[in-house]
């Protein structure tokens, strides 16, 4: 039976998580607003240049040549992108740094509350807490926050992701809490299957990760334009965003990592469909749009290996693909009728 008490606490946790994320969001805003041009990048460049021969290495371009001599007497020469050399959003501004650190703290608190909310919902209903649109939105937002938190804890300089990530998480969670909310209840018979755990979990994780990739892609577009001298007004801010090459690589890596999982989510859905409806593929709107999403991300991966399609063209494809992800979620569930219309959306 439903544990009403726990369900109530779940709602409370989600509400508190919203507050914490809102604090984080405003603190990230402060970091971006107060940040100043970093000298860190210049410093890193100088380290490389201490060797007179490296005069050509361009730190600003994200490509960086370093020579290091270890205690073993081995001298190592790398010409790969150095994350350490990337600028940070706060730059040298102390106020911005404080804002940024507070934002990270608030993000962690928000994530903790958010996770508590999702977990207690699951405990309240004795099943995975992503069986309707409210729960799925909360879980996908949690997956996205989780991806960011993991990157933070691995010590990478990914605070630049904080502002867009908290923005999207806030938006998703807010929408879930206000518009999509449904009480904690049992499942409709169509969902009585262990495939709910497999198929929907894969879909939740994929959706969250595609969101992160989209953030990186959008920043890449802006940064690439700024690097070409466009967007003079945003130049001050974009200077402190990682190089376009780095952003592009981040987006690609996330998509390349999650694309097999999305493929698996679609296949798991097909297996479930076979079990429930007697056919593994029937061009139900959800199936059709999952297919479209899959094909467009496949096109993105192909485009990255094609002359004339790299860089911005591929980035547009990635953005288009995410638009389709969003339509597949919101549009198909609300506008089109099919097998995926369930209780409380």
């Amino acid at each position, binding site marked *: 039976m439903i544990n009403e008490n726990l369900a109530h606490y779940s709602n409370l946790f989600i509400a508190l998580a919203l507050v914490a994320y809102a604090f984080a969001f405003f603190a990230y805003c402060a970091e971006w607003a107060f940040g100043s041009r970093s000298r860190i990048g210049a410093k890193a460049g100088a380290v490389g240049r201490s060797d007179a021969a490296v005069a050509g290495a361009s730190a600003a371009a994200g490509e960086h040549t370093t020579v290091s001599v270890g205690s073993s007497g*081995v001298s190592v020469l790398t010409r790969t992108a150095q994350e350490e050399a990337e600028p940070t959003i706060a730059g040298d501004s102390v106020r911005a740094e404080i804002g940024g650190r507070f934002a990270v703290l608030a993000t962690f608190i928000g994530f903790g509350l958010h996770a508590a909310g999702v977990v207690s919902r699951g405990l309240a209903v004795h099943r995975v807490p992503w069986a309707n649109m409210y729960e799925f939105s909360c879980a996908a937002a949690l997956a996205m926050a989780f991806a960011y938190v993991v990157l933070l804890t691995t010590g990478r300089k990914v605070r630049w992701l904080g502002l867009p990530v908290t923005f999207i998480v806030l938006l998703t969670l807010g929408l879930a809490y206000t518009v999509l909310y449904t009480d904690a*209840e049992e499942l409709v018979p169509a969902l009585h299957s262990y495939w709910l755990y497999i198929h929907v979990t894969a879909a939740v994780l994929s959706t969250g990760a595609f969101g992160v990739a989209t953030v990186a892609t959008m920043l890449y577009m802006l940064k690439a334009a700024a690097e070409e001298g466009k967007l003079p007004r945003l130049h001050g801010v974009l200077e402190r965003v990682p190089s376009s090459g780095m952003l592009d690589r981040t987006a690609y890596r996330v998509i390349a990592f999650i694309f097999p999982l999305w493929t698996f989510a679609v296949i798991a859905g097909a297996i479930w469909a076979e079990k429930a409806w007697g056919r593994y593929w029937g061009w139900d709107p959800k199936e059709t749009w999952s297919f479209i999403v899959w094909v467009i991300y496949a096109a993105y991966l192909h485009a990255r290996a094609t002359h004339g399609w790299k860089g911005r063209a591929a980035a547009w494809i990635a953005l288009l693909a995410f638009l389709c992800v969003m339509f597949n979620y919101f549009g198909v569930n609300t506008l089109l009728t099919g097998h995926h219309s369930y209780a409380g959306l």
Partner: protein
Amino acid sequence: MTAGIPRFTEAESVTEQQTDTDQQAEAPGPESAADFEGGDRLSTAPRPESSLAVPRLGTWELLRWMWRQLTSMRIALTLLFLLSVAAIPGSLLPQREIDPSKVLQFYLAHKTWAPILDKLQLFDVFESVWFGAIYCLLFISLVGCILPRSLAHFRAMRGRPPAAPRNLKRLPVHASFRTAAPAEQALAAAQKRLKGRRFRTVTGADAGGTWVSAEKGYLRETGNLIFHLALLGILVAVAIGHFFGFKGARLVTEGNQFCDTVAGYDNLTMGQLVGPEDLPPFCIHLDKFTASYQDSGDQMGQPRTFDAYTTYYATPTSKPKKVDVRVNDPITVNGTNVFLEGHGYAPVVTVKDGTGQVVYDGPVTFLGIDANFTSSGSIKVPDAKPKGLGFQGYLLPTAVTVPGSMPASVFPAAQNPVLILAAYAGDLSMDAGESQSVYTLDTSHMTRLQVKDKTNPAGGNALMLSVGQSATLPSGLGSITFDGVKQWAQFNIAYDPGQPIALGSAAFAVLGLVGSLGIRRRRIWVRVSEQGDGTRLIEVAGLARTEGATPTTEVTEAAETLAAQLTVAPSGSAPEERVPEERDPAEPGPAENDKQQRKSTPRTGASA
């Protein structure tokens, strides 16, 4: 002819891939030179400017040109886009394959547009000529790409890693140290180390000294090929299902039975190569159907459980078996699955005609039309005397009557079933030849009977019957009694012999994808060169063959391990230990950077 150059691996990083050593080792034939010129061109298509003009050549050359176009990456990309765009109308417009009745509704609502859309096959998108053309071209393009690549990969798997480049410092990561140990020992240690890391290694010597060349991550391309082959497997599975499978549906009311014969189905689609004799001879008797619903909260009325308690006979002579069929829990008989697809109510009525004869006695299936299972249907009694009788109306499973409005169902379970019927008398036109829907009454040759109940004005000119109630029709035409409510279940029966192939292919597709996107293909070289002063310079360098896979850590660790094994000699200040200077300080960005770097890499040494 189109071989050699990878088309569909995303992220074969160009910079790193196209170094001189690759050219000799892996890309035989004229393309290698062409691609060396072409820089980061991974497509086998002609360059854009030349591709626009169709060469004025013979048929053979034209075909060849078309083939090259079709198997090019740009066309493959275009086809992928077309495929996704073409699928969109299939989700927005009603599809015959999914729900033919919605197509009919659309026809009625859009009288001018519907025939045009139908001509364009927009109600059968996934069966349409143009959708088929797109995926056929895509698969031809895929085959045209996979075959040469499989061949090239097969050769690469059997071949050896390419010779070490002369100048290892030009590679993205490079580590070096000096040692007094003999060259053979250093080389052996290096090879042992790399072999231990499951690199494929080869040693050699050239004017610059001796070297070990090692490569790892061949499974990336293997995965890539497996993935694309698996897509073909899925296509084959779909085709097999299409030709050898069948699917059908049958509605069974509680207490009734269905047998798997062509005549037994409400509708049945059989593959071209399936005959009536191929249907397995099972029978299913629906003993009882139960449904439970949420009875409180904001999801009130949502279904919670459906159970179709059945007795089934795998063959007419086999022992009966009791099975509870649920959603997600089908019965499987010889590979044929029986699914619970839908449910609804069948009011049980007794109709007597004007002569007092019982002319109908039994359940009539009604179709649910809303979430609270308001169900609509018709009762047809064409043989009643003196006139044929017909009733059209609704069953409300849990009827609530609010004064001043029509009664409505407020809950899907049958807690207070009420039957509301308009009564007609006359000719039901059932012999007219055209098949009629069992749920609607053709009233064109019938007259509506006045059945207004003065004690119950809410009903309007309709009969309103609770369970057990009867109503007498005017003019001595007869009477109708509402005896109770039964439920029916709709079963889908499906057989698809392509399924195991589809499942296997899908599994291979995912595995292939994981390999293709997750495995990094990289090369590591170790070069030992005499330094004149009695020491030897050991250089370790690495190159990624896939984006972002520069083996920095691997190279550094390998160098450090070797240094520990070989005792490091104090580092001389040889000028070549400095970073090369050819990099252009004014390089604008990383993308450009790559190209520049590649172009500026001279094709040194390395004769295999």
